[in-house]
């Protein structure tokens, strides 16, 4: 009898011990439950300003939350942290910097009163780590490099984001903290964007040579491989930057002179060179160079656009830019194929946008009366697909990108990520 009691007590004790061992339910559920969801448990997005959610040359939480990786992660049903920039109008905080609301004034008008701080700093609620490690201004070298290790990236105003968004670390360093299971990479746009955005002369040659880009990109991919946790990824090709509405073909300015009698556009702005059945290189006039000429002419001051000026992108420079992007994308696609990852070329989509002038305007919609701007010049001066800076996607385009990525991922990985919410 005594022995039986001891056995009962022993059995009870073992049962208690066994119950104590099954504590898996104490973990927060993490794995998305749809088909293929395990791969998206921890998603990290690499990239630059587009991936960060930059719009209208500004960044704040109201824009960041509309960035394609945030929307995609929401569809994936996975925890996703981004470095939120304060957007609290009641506290006079509008962004870092606050986005442009009207680009045709000088200087452009930004959201909020002029007295608002130029940078509203990060939200005081700091996430434990970052899933969106993209920062505006990032090129392929800056994904690899610590801030001051050689070779040093060219200093830029956007370098401040390395501190504000990434805490002085690189995208790779911040990503490694997350032990990502899935990544998207959209890098390389800034290796060619200087050609259209740099306001200095001869900027059209400001591109990273393809061989250099390829070596750096492959080094970046090797770093990703070293994580040892990534189960899959999607690489996005570089956009043909000459398709951005921030630059207009010279022929668009030539046509516009008919409506602005005091503006003269020289015939050299009509130059072009066919490249393929679908691609042609033109002379391209950056907004920062062409807009002041239009403004002066519209104000009655005669001015002339000469497309031989070194601030204009020549046909030869355009050919180089376009060819360079083609080589970038070949390298990116090859890296994806080597890993059996998905690859997406964004340029066919851009071409469909370009075919719709409401989406991408071939010529900026200058306000007929600068003193009383019309709604188009305020809301969509470069078309609905672009934000008010003519370079970065609008919110609707960010959402479309997310949907396209979701579709591509589902097809490539036979997954069932739900639609973008």
């Amino acid at each position, binding site marked *: 009898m005594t022995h039986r009691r*001891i056995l009962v*007590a022993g059995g009870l004790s073992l049962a208690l011990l066994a119950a104590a061992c099954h504590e898996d339910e*104490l973990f927060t559920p993490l794995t998305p439950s749809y088909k293929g969801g395990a791969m998206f448990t921890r998603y990290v997005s690499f990239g630059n300003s587009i991936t960060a959610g930059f719009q209208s040359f500004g960044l704040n939480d109201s824009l960041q939350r509309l960035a394609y990786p945030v929307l995609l992660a929401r569809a994936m049903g996975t925890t996703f942290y981004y470095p939120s920039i304060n957007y609290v109008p009641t506290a006079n905080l509008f962004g870092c910097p606050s986005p442009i609301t009207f680009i045709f004034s000088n200087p452009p008008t930004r959201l909020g009163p002029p007295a608002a701080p130029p940078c509203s700093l*990060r939200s005081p609620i*700091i996430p*434990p780590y970052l899933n969106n490690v993209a920062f505006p201004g990032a090129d392929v070298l800056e994904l690899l490099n610590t801030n001051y290790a050689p070779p040093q990236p060219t200093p830029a105003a956007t*370098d401040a984001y390395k*501190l504000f968004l990434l*805490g002085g*670390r690189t995208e790779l360093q911040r990503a490694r903290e997350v032990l990502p299971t899935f990544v998207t990479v959209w890098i390389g746009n800034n290796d060619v964007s200087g050609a259209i955005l740099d306001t200095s002369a001869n900027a059209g040659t400001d591109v990273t040579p393809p061989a250099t880009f390829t070596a750096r990109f492959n080094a970046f991919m090797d770093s990703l491989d070293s994580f040892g946790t990534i189960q899959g990824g999607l690489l996005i090709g570089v956009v043909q930057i000459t398709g951005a509405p921030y630059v207009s073909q010279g022929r668009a300015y030539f046509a516009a002179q008919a409506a602005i009698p005091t503006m003269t556009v020289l015939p050299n702005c009509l130059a072009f060179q066919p490249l393929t059945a679908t691609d042609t290189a033109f002379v391209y006039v950056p907004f920062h160079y062409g807009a002041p000429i239009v403004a002066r002419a519209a104000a009655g001051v005669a001015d002339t656009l000469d497309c031989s000026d070194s601030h204009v992108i020549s046909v030869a420079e355009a050919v180089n830019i376009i060819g360079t992007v083609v080589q970038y994308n070949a390298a990116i696609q090859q890296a994806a194929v080597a890993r059996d990852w998905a690859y997406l070329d964004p340029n066919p989509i851009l071409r469909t946008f370009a075919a719709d002038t409401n989406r991408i305007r071939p010529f900026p919609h200058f306000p007929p009366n600068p003193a009383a701007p019309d709604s188009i010049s305020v809301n969509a001066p470069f078309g609905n697909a672009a934000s008010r800076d003519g370079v970065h996607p609008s919110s609707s385009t960010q959402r479309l990108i997310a949907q396209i990525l979701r579709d591509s991922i589902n097809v490539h990985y036979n997954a069932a990520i739900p639609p973008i919410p």
Partner: protein
Amino acid sequence: MRRSVRYALVLFAGFPALLGAQGFGIYEQGACSMGRAGTGVAAPCSDGSAIFFSPAGLAGLTGGRATIGVTLLDVEGGFTDDILQQETRLDDPFLAIPQVYVAYGVTPKLGVGIGLFAPYGLQTRWPLSFDGRFSGYDNILRSVYVQPTVSYQVTPWLSLGGGVDVVFGSVELNQRLDLADAPVPTALGVPAGTLFSQFGIAPGTDFADTHLEASKTTVAGHFGALFKVNDRLSFGARFMTQAKFDYSGTASFTQVPTGLVVPADLTVGSLTIPAGCPIDALLTAPAASCGGIGLNLFNPSAGVFRSQPVTTTIKNPSQMALGVAYKVASGWTLLGDYQYTWWDSFNELDIVFPQDASGALSRKLFERYDGTSGFRFAAEWMKDAKWTFRGGYLYHGGAAPAETVTPLLPEGNRNEFTAGATVKLSRGLTADLAYQFIRQNDRRGRTREALFNQPATTGLNNGLYNFHAHLFGVSLGYAF
């Protein structure tokens, strides 16, 4: 003699561990009692450990007993975070807890003794890669009780006993400071309360190492009663009063390099911090590389992080045990104890830096522990005059509420199993051996404290703590 006393204290200085009782309580105060799952308030072991387990139990002692023992601890545990599912293991060393008891029966009714034991204490050591390092990566709480005890048999069925505890307490806290959580001095022209994280500094950016050390001696009391209903059945009770320590000590700070550099000219208020300024330099003296700007945080005479006094108050809670012992037959004895510890006295922990005018250093930790119950059961078989075997089981609840399971003390409900034996080596010499397995239920907890001295919530819990331990006890007793 003075030298040997000092040596004993040094031995005790190495004892702390995260152990087999609620909160930071320790109940393994002798190999014999350890084999009995800590029972014995109604029938204490004869090795003198009655000084702790049943102060009334010294009455009726014949001759003297001197026992020295040690409990060896192999503590295993860790924390698995929710998102990354990565486990960080406790880095606790293999520990040894010594015990010393000397007891003497002055008359058949009067017993006296003195014991050194440590019913409260902890050590939790985590690797510096652990996110919890900002709460504390090497925390030690020591309480060494020296208890002279007198016990008297008032009637043949009732004995009473009691003692005064002189308690030597010390506390040591080592932690890292996270630059992300640090407020930016308003001297930089930012609004009060702006944190470095708002400039993008990532969580987990160590910039200072803090060492807090304090000690205090205080006094408590310990009382017991033993009721012998007959030769087989006895009841016991004991009550140890709270020991309150008003600690006073020193805090010292060491800068930890971040290696970060300001990547672009940074306009803060009316100041511009130039690109290339090392943030480590910015935190110290004004430097040319930072445009002559420096926050002087580590200035040894005026910096916020200079060495300075620190005070805090910690209470070792009162504890009570009620027990029964019944001699079944043929050398078998069954024992059962119930223990209650008033852990609700461990409510808030104020760490105060009286010389810090900025108020940035003082911290209030909301512990909000609950009183806990422990249930102990054991059986003992005296095989013959040479061998005695014993085994037991105990269960107790956790003192820490769900929002206070932290790197400092990630405790919870525990099931524990014990076994032990006594062997008589010679006429006066006895050896005790014991083994104890501690299995703590896995428990959700957090790695960080709430900011701005706010009470924590379970919303901060970010992972799962696990803990188990193997304890080995050995002691040698001498009867004289």
